[in-house]
């Protein structure tokens, strides 16, 4: 029970990354971890997904560079136009250019995904460390709490939060973050438990290092490797979840350029004007797939080495 929960696929596969092997290779800590991550050349998948993400990041940070138009500018005379040279992704019901909206929507959509993951992982780190390092009763309490939270399907938990605190971008981000936290926390806890029993940490204890030193210099860096994979995988999931919430009308409000909200607006026209849903949908898929592939290839890499 206090050992690894083997039911979780992620835990099982990522365990070697933080297993005591680094210690035998000349010492724990940042050096070994860094070398392991950057040693081999990137695979094609890794390069491709990193490129896609870089492009998306540029779109998110400097949307004006990629699409100089105004995502909210309406032109009723040009409504429902099919993709053409003037409007590569077509126009929506108010004649707004969908390409411009998709590009300007990258910011809010990705920001929601990234910050939700940050909230989720941040909370998970606190819970995981508390459970993994604290006294037995604290571990017991935290673990039970996580198990209760686990009983709720994640999205249901997010919906519950929104019902209480009202819809909007901020609440839906927090909601997604909160609902992903229990999953991360459980993985982190198991990593902490493994690391705590590792020879290098025992060595540090024997050497008389303080608790804070052991956590920041030995424990966290080793847990971080797993965390990095989790985060990349999690962002994709969070983007999809946040889009789902906007799609349900619980996230970004119209006429904000946000992918989920755009999907929702185009939904009623799906039989007549496919491009209104296709392109925002495509970008949700692309960004989720790219982050997931990147995460998986990093994961696979760390397992090989």
């Amino acid at each position, binding site marked *: 029970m206090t050992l690894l929960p083997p039911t979780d696929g992620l835990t099982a596969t990522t365990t070697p990354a933080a297993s005591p092997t680094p210690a035998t290779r000349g010492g724990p800590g940042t050096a070994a971890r860094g070398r392991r991550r950057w040693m081999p050349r990137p695979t094609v998948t890794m390069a491709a997904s990193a490129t896609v993400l870089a492009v998306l990041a540029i779109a998110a940070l400097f949307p004006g560079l990629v699409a100089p138009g105004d995502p909210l500018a*309406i032109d009723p005379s040009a409504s*429902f136009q099919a993709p053409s040279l003037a409007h590569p992704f077509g126009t929506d019901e108010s004649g707004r250019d969908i390409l411009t909206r998709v590009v300007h929507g990258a910011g809010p959509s990705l920001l929601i995904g990234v910050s939700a993951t940050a909230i989720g992982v941040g909370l998970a780190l606190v819970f995981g460390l508390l459970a993994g390092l604290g006294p037995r009763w604290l571990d017991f309490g935290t673990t039970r709490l996580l198990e209760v939270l686990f009983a709720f399907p994640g999205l249901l938990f997010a919906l519950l939060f929104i019902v209480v605190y009202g819809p909007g971008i901020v609440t839906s981000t927090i909601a997604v973050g909160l609902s992903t936290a229990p999953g991360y926390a459980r993985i982190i806890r198991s990593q902490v438990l493994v690391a705590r029993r590792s020879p290098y940490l025992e060595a540090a204890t024997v050497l008389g290092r303080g608790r804070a030193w052991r956590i920041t210099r030995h424990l966290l860096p080793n847990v971080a490797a797993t965390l990095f994979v989790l985060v990349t995988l999690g962002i994709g999931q969070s983007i999809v979840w946040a889009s789902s919430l906007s799609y349900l009308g619980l996230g970004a409000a*119209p*006429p904000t350029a946000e992918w989920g909200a755009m999907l929702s607006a185009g939904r009623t026209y799906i039989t007549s004007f496919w491009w209104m849903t296709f392109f925002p949908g495509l970008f949700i898929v692309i960004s989720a797939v790219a982050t997931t592939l990147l995460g998986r290839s990093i994961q696979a890499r760390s397992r090989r080495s």
Partner: protein
Amino acid sequence: MHRRLTSLLATTAAAALLVGCTAEATPASGDPVTGGTLVYATGDAEPTCLDPHVGGNYPQALIATQYLESLVSKDTDGEVIPWLADSWQVSDDGLSWEFTLKEGVTFTDGTPLTSAAVAANVAHVQDPATASSTGYLALAKVTGVEEVDELTARITLSSPDSGLLDSLSQTWLAIQSPTALERTQEENCEAPVGTGPFMVEAWDRQESVTLSRNDDYSSPPADAAHTGAAYLDGIEWRFIPDSASRYAALQSGTVDVIDNVQPDTIVAAEDDDAIDHIDAPRPGASNRLELNSSVTPFDDILVREAFIRSANVDDAVSSLFFGTAERSYSALSSVETLGVSDESLFEYDPDAANDLLDEAGWTGRDADGYRTKDGETLALTFPVSTNQSIPAEQSLFEQLQSTAAETGFRVDLEPLDLASWYAALGENDYDLVSAPYTKVGADVLRILFDTSGTVPAPSGYFANHAQVKDPEVDALLAQASATSDAGERAELYAEVQQRVLEGFYILPLYDQQNHYLHSTDVQGMRALPTVSTPALYDAWLGR
């Protein structure tokens, strides 16, 4: 002798028709076929109560038309025709109306239709515990019902009401079994009992209502195509809120009739030979934005006019409605013969709008370019009911938001579900609102623009959202309602409308859209000429 001859002729003709029919390969049209269950998919909100006396909104009327009936109805020419009442007589002073009921009609629980039933229903609607709004407001002048004899009910009024018959023709004032009304409200909401061609069998929340045929039905309105029981075995009344799914279900044959059809879908369905379209604009008010004149900034007529001049409605309507909706310049629906239209008051003119705002003192600009006055931003709260406004209409509001922003208005659209939307209106937390109001006849003007319309009905709902409180309007409305002279009445109502339009309290958009699409297998379906709800009594399935 004569009668026997005609019946003989009729039988021969029917036989001939039958023969002619069976000889043909396609039985799609011809004589009505009995049997089959029609599946109706509604996109309107699911009622919280199936008794339209309670509250009283359009989704309730849609379904209640299938199992409840009114005292009178109207034909397509707008003439009042007999339904549960065979005839009626108004006293000389206009203060009492005698209705003679049809003989031998029973409610589906076996209770006979008598004058006591009429009295019980009026009392039910007027009882504050019922929490009625639409029916309650329509009966504002009714003081009581006297049971003259078993089949004669005399409705007494506090002052003459020229709109009484119109009011009584509506589903919100349909006559229910007095025995059933004695049950708790919860029970009555679950399965109201009427005299209609169908009755409520079961209600599976969020899914459907099952209606079955009333085999003893004997009270069709005077303009129905047949007598006796309905052709359909029953109706499955499904709730499918998503319009794309609703249309897909119709195309695949899973459902037979859909309502709340999107404009692009109407256009697409025109090319589909297996689908027919019924366009039945609702009577009463046009679809319009109401400008809340009780709070800043719309307590200033200059700002109201500026907003109306800044809104480019025409372009929005033509971009979103594909020619399925025509721009309105009237407070009333185009089916109302007494409607007054004044296009000149609603022309899009941003320059004029800017001048008006300057004049009204909204001369400052904030960082986003919105106008300010004494540090206040010119912001308008606009709660939008996602249940009552189809997506195309919500897009229209976004476009108005965008064009109004050019003049310096910040419009905050707030998509809300029906309950939150009612709450926002109740708390006077809105500057703009689009609230459909359906009522037969020009008397709707009294409900929408009389000062008394700002006082909530027992349900908590009030209909004068523009909060027009103009003694002149009140006086004109009272006169129009009291006069029995049709010409004078028309003149008075015209004056009221002109005054309201010139006060810039409303921005008319178009008729309340009410489109039905049905499979060509469905024959004989029509929209009731009263409130345009679907009448399926004469409908049959030719498949």
